[in-house]
């Protein structure tokens, strides 16, 4: 604070302080819920998609492949616009989403596709001997998956999934374009009245950075816990 005030005018300081609460509100009521809900749904989609991909059943792996290809091959912004403006314009009541819901749908679909590739790779990285050992004591495919393969695959996938999660925190700023009042939209609204874009956008950026920093600390803790059973 002291450091900042030495090269910011007192007017600037007031703007920073006044905008902090609205920005924080954007974080707490939209940025964080949007991230958490989308990531949770996305993970379920991702695990399902990964299992479809490795199922060896043509129809299922085909569906998974097409889904991943479409999502990875199109910009997230376009996906958001299709879900919110595109579907909303069809005249079908059920497809008119609240901005927040539309954002959750788009982000979940997006996370699901990317994370499914991560999860698929980590399942495939588990040695064949683990499947055989679990089969040999009588486990079914699903039991092996649940008790032996997925727990180990989880460890492998924590670093890349953390990347996706941290990425998602920042990508929620795109929801500003479909009228979700998350932090970045709040920042834009503030700038529209104060005309201090540098100041307020840097402030918003700093808040994103703090969130991501805290998340990477958390990631370190989770990794440490997950690595308890491997030689370091």
């Amino acid at each position, binding site marked *: 604070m002291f450091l900042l005030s030495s090269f910011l005018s007192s007017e600037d300081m007031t703007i920073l302080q006044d905008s902090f609460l609205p920005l924080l509100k954007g974080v707490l009521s939209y940025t964080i819920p949007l991230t958490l809900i989308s990531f949770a749904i996305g993970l379920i989609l991702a695990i399902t998609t990964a299992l479809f991909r490795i199922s060896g059943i043509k129809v299922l792996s085909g569906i998974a492949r097409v889904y991943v290809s479409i999502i990875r091959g199109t910009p997230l912004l376009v996906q958001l616009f299709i879900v919110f403006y595109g579907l909303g314009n069809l005249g079908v009541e059920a497809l008119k989403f609240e901005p927040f819901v539309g954002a959750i749908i788009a982000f979940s679909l997006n996370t699901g596709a990317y994370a499914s590739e991560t999860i698929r790779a980590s399942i495939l990285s588990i040695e064949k*001997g683990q499947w055989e050992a679990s089969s040999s004591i009588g*486990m*079914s495919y699903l039991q092996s998956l649940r008790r032996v393969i997925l727990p180990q695959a989880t460890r492998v996938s924590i670093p890349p999934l953390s990347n996706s999660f941290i990425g998602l925190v920042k990508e929620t700023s795109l929801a500003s374009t479909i009228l979700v009042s998350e932090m970045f939209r709040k920042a834009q609204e503030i700038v529209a009245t104060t005309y201090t874009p540098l100041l307020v956008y840097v402030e918003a950026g700093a808040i994103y950075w703090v969130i991501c920093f805290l998340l990477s600390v958390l990631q370190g803790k989770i990794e440490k816990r997950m690595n308890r059973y491997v030689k370091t």
Partner: protein
Amino acid sequence: MINMNNISKQFGDLVVLKDISLQVEQGKVVVIIGPSGSGKTTLLRCLNVLEQPEEGSITIDQQTLKFSEKVSKKEIREFRRQTGMVFQTYNLFPHFTAVENVMEGPITVQKVAKAKAREKAVDILTKVGLHEKMEVYPYQLSGGQQQRVGIARAMAIDPKVMLFDEPTSALDPELVGEVLQVMKKLAAEGRTMVVVTHEMSFAKEVADEVLFMDNGMIVERGEPSVLFEHPKEERTKQFLKLIKQ
């Protein structure tokens, strides 16, 4: 106890087991020897149905699988529970402690209560000399200790037959003894065992019968003293000369 009838197995065009028949009586220990690629592992894996033969049938105790007919996954699982498999590379579950590795089969497959499964696992681990290593992860164990956990894990599902695929060949020489000792103990208890190994001393001391496999066939079989000292077949003689060196 085991009755293998006319088992044939191929991978693509490669015929790995050619019309193999094999009987093992209850309580007997059969050792299989043979050159690399002769099909020893595949034979054991067929007994555990990790591989499905194209032809033939296997009976263990009362249960029979006929491979010329379609067998369901459930049938295979049921059948598989009669054999306990010990792998060359241990294949322990790295995310479980020693005792959890042993409890896993009873808990997940046999639906035994956790406390009871633990009690049993502790008993078995004590028997294989690992009562002090119960709560450690596999990476904290030596190869010999890991393999003994592997044996304990296989025993925990109360199999009627124990299958060992070169259980000591990945071990440093000084660790081989402790694993063989556990296996001798099991044999002395009257367990039915099929063991792929090139440990001649073990075979001589413990085996009731030794099979020599080559090229997907059982070339010769007999009591260890007879087969090792007076082999009839030329290929057996050559192979024994090789491993005695």
